[in-house]
């Protein structure tokens, strides 16, 4: 068994914060349920309006892709990875994590526009926007995400990270109940 080394973004301050303020570490996350997505793109509209004050879909930090033949839609957005590739390759710490938070934060003034983060993200969830000359990075709208509010079918939820998969787990468990009833 491999012994995990300390995460590269480990810092005394963060470790202390997690001990002193355990509640802060139990952060909230944006949970996506693709099976509930209807492809309406209200999340993209809300994201763009919140960040830009206009409707410019390329400026949305969340993107919905639809496959019309299969009839499926999937929202794609930053997952604020624990070991975030974008943050690791950022040479100026424009991308960083503040102590006790789950958010990978972006500080535009430190960004040199090298695009390394957009290359590093395996999901393509961080993009460079030539229109605003900056990186488009989900900031969770400062703790009240517009996309989750705008989603009419709760395909995007803003939940405590400790319970983020609970609804999915329970939905799956309920299939056993159905099976028992049929038997």
């Amino acid at each position, binding site marked *: 068994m491999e012994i995990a080394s300390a995460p590269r973004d480990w810092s005394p301050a963060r470790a202390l914060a997690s001990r002193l303020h355990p509640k802060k570490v139990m952060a909230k996350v944006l949970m996506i349920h693709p099976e509930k997505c209807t492809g309406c793109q*209200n999340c993209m509209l809300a994201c763009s*309006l919140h960040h830009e004050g206009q409707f410019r879909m390329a400026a949305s930090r969340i993107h919905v892709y639809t496959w019309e033949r299969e009839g499926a*839609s999937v929202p794609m957005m930053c997952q604020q990875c624990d070991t975030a590739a974008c943050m690791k390759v950022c040479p100026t710490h424009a991308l960083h994590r503040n102590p006790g938070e789950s958010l990978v934060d972006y500080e535009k003034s430190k960004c040199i526009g090298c695009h390394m983060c957009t290359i590093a993200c395996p999901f393509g969830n961080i993009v460079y926007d030539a229109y605003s000359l900056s990186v488009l990075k989900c900031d969770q709208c400062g703790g009240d995400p517009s996309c989750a509010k705008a989603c009419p079918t709760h395909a995007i939820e803003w939940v405590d990270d400790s319970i983020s998969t609970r609804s999915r787990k329970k939905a799956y468990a309920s299939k056993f109940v159905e099976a028992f009833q049929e038997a």
Partner: protein
Amino acid sequence: MTGWMGTILRINLSNGAVTKEPLNAKDAALFLGARGLGVKIFTDEVDAKVEPLSPENKLIFAPGPFTGTSAPSAGRYHVVAKSPLTHTIGGANSGGVFGAALKYAGYDAVIIEGKAEKAVYLWIKDDQVEIRDASHLWGKWVPDTTDAVRAETDDDASVACIGPAGEKLALMASIQNEMHRSAGRGGLGAVMGSKKLKAIAVKGSKPVRVADVKALEAAIWSARAKVAANPVAQGLHKHGTEILVNILNEIGSLPTRNWNDAHFPTADKVGGESLTKEVLARRKGCFACVISCGRVSQIKDPEFAGIGEGPEYEAGWAYGPDCGVDNIFAVTKANHLCNELGLDSISTPATIACVIDMATSGVLPREDWDGLDIRWNNPELIVELTKRIGLRQGLGDKAALGSYRFAEMYGHPEFAMTAKKQEMPAYDARGIQGIGLQYATCNRGGCHVKGYTIAVEVLGNGLRLDPRETKGKPAIVKAFQDMTAAVDASGGCIFGTFGMVADDYAAMLSALTGIHYSPEDYVRAGERVWNLEREFNLNAGFTAKDDTLPERLFKHPIQTGPSKGLVSHVPEMLPEYYSVRGWNEQGVPTPEKLHELELA
């Protein structure tokens, strides 16, 4: 300009000229966009006597000011041309993503003129506009066309196109976008086919600007809350528009077997609840929709296997009870074929119902049956005849002209359940008086959506009226027609109106555009559009005599069920309708009315 993009794109397919013109700000303020602006441009530029399938007819695609914004369930575009089916002003709108894509590309309207020498498609990427060869796409069905155009342009391009039906000038041909969404009524796909225009692909990256962000957000959230709390909207999300099958059957106003009756004992088998149970794979929403009534449907029955979208209520009704069919798999399959071949899924099945009625009544000679087993309740027939109509083969070639022309060919136009030669939809005008007046007076012929009085005559949405009563209905019909025209002109879907009222639309429009609209201003814009359309139809040669319904609805009462014995009373309501409209006894808008609406 906020709300609008400020540019109109004009493409002449005869000489290949592409020009961009500034949007006339006064027209935009008065007619909003989509249906309103489209009809304004069309009536300014095209002679009402134009032959619909000639190069002189124009085809306009227009999103509205709300399109591309998060105004709830308001992401639509409207297509305007003279209809080859009705010869009235033609107009059909569709959701999906295409309207928003046009807007983001920077256009409030795209005007298509002339006729290409050989098949072409358009590729609109922001300011860059190309007319490209489409010879290799001609003959392809809608899904294959969409894939092929995307492969040649952009993976994420939004594509509106016609299928074989539009190419072959079927008068019930639709224009399809995102494969399954349809600007279906009035045969506008045939106009596109007559211009040899196979498809339009669009990708846009421009912003829609907002005059007052805070006020718009507040108005949107207040409006959204009303839609979310509305029971009709909730029902549409749960079971789709097909939820209406059982509701209409229970009151005995579900037209059955080509309107010979209005009650179908096994309707439940093709209703929304059955659809949810048997074929629903997923719920689907158009751009910016907060309801998501769309259905991704997957048919497991091996005989009719397939995946697609729908059916909507009107298609489910027309393929189902109107053809005497209660097989949900066959109904869903036939609906998928309409989308794939590019056919109106109301007129096509209603025409099949007419064919069955004529065959079983002995007025369609057996040698013309094309080898088909034509009878009520034949699931294979509705699927097979849909295919032959879309490809214009055999019996389908004649039926592709719509039920009126088909029945007339055999000397029996009385079998066509049409108003102004367009097939009427799924609400029996004998049991529901207001909707009958809507069918008779609608500017695009037999149509429910442009004056959906069902909301108050059947669903009790905000107000509950007795469907059998005629008193007061003319004013109700006018109110619904005007409000709907305003919603259409701003890019909205009428399903939003189950929750939202004129105050909501006016507040959103004011915040978006920076022009103050009172609720009255908003509805007046709709009345303006309605009157402009009426003027066009009058100039095209229509008169008050055309504001009527098939004789069957006046002389042949409903035979069974709760509405047994009822007939339509449209002729008695018509004079009052003209009067509340401010029209003279011949149904012509008075000079005072035109002046009041700033149309003269």
